[in-house]
């Protein structure tokens, strides 16, 4: 490399350093910081309120919903209790009827799981309703006599002897009918015409 070329390279390097330094030495107009801060302040005043300022409103809303829900549930349970006490129909728990026990013994009608579900759900509801009602001394609760019963009572009071005779005769008659029924035995069901047509 010639000294002339070396000199030119040195010159170019120096010029490049100086020019690049100048390039990066740009100065802003005076008051840049104030202008930036002013624009930030105006931007912050335009922004909506922060999220935490809504917190009391949310708490109040949640409390209102909770209290309303609690009142609704309390009122609903109170009304169901009133229904249970007002109807007062006799309910048997745990002891199946004759028909039910017969069905279970023979297995003719095995209860399906669906049937069990249908039975179990109202029983649970009934138990809940009964638990809410105070226990009575006499079950079922005494009902006033009907008109026919009142006539019968008056008749017995007026004619006790005749009434006793009639009662005894009625009892004997019903016993005799029961004996006759047992002697005849079960009736044989003949096939109907519709059965014959549709085998």
């Amino acid at each position: 490399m010639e000294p002339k070329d070396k000199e030119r390279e040195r010159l170019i390097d120096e010029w490049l350093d100086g020019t690049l330094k100048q390039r990066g030495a740009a100065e802003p107009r005076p008051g840049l910081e104030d202008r930036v801060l002013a624009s930030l302040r105006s931007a912050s005043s335009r922004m909506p309120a922060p999220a935490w300022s809504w917190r009391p409103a949310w708490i109040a809303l949640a409390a209102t919903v909770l209290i309303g829900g609690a009142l609704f549930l309390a009122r609903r349970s109170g009304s169901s209790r009133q229904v249970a006490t007002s109807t007062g129909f006799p309910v048997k728990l745990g002891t199946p009827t004759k028909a039910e026990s017969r069905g279970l013994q023979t297995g003719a009608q095995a209860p399906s799981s669906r049937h069990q579900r249908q039975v179990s759900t109202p029983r649970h509801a009934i138990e809940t309703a009964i638990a809410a009602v105070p226990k009575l001394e006499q079950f079922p609760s005494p009902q006033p006599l009907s008109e026919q019963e009142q006539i019968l009572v008056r008749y017995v009071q007026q004619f006790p002897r005749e009434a006793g005779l009639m009662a005894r005769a009625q009892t004997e008659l019903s016993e005799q009918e029961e004996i006759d029924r047992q002697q005849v035995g079960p009736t044989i069901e003949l096939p109907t015409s519709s059965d014959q047509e549709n085998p």
Partner: protein
Amino acid sequence: MVAGQVIVNQAMAETRAEATDEELEFAVRDHARLVYRVSYSVLRNHHDAEDATQETFFRVWRYRKKLAEVRELRTWLARIAWRVAVERRKKASEVPWDEAEDAIPKIRSSATSADQLLLQAEMQGVLDCLIAALPSKLRDPLTLSTLEEMSPTQIADVLGMNEAAVRSRLFRARQILRNKLAALLEGKHGA
């Protein structure tokens, strides 16, 4: 109890907001010039650079909760300013070499030697064209290196690369510029 907690939380949030506002004001006072220079080095226009500076600090204000977690505030601000400026920069970055070569004959006519040619004010424009024509992976480190506040380590942080890569790219960029300038000056001598 709940209302009390809300009031305490509000007071704490207000205190924190005041603290971050103070920090932000200090950041503006201390580093607005650096942010401006980073923006100007990319955009090469005072008006655009000031707009980019405003936008940079607006972004900082939006994420002011992170200010307490920032370790190197200068580098963090420079990185944001760099991104804002690059987003604002338009297609002007892609300048062909021919533009720089076309500018030279006008300067040549008034200069008699290479020394005189380098002294011409128009040569600044030629250098701008040469830098703009560099590939971006060389141009970006060179652009940031012109800022006296930025060390190669900080340039590496801003550009998300390691320091060795920054140094190597700076060397290559300067070499390309030197060769191009030498070629242009030789052309002058040859004329």
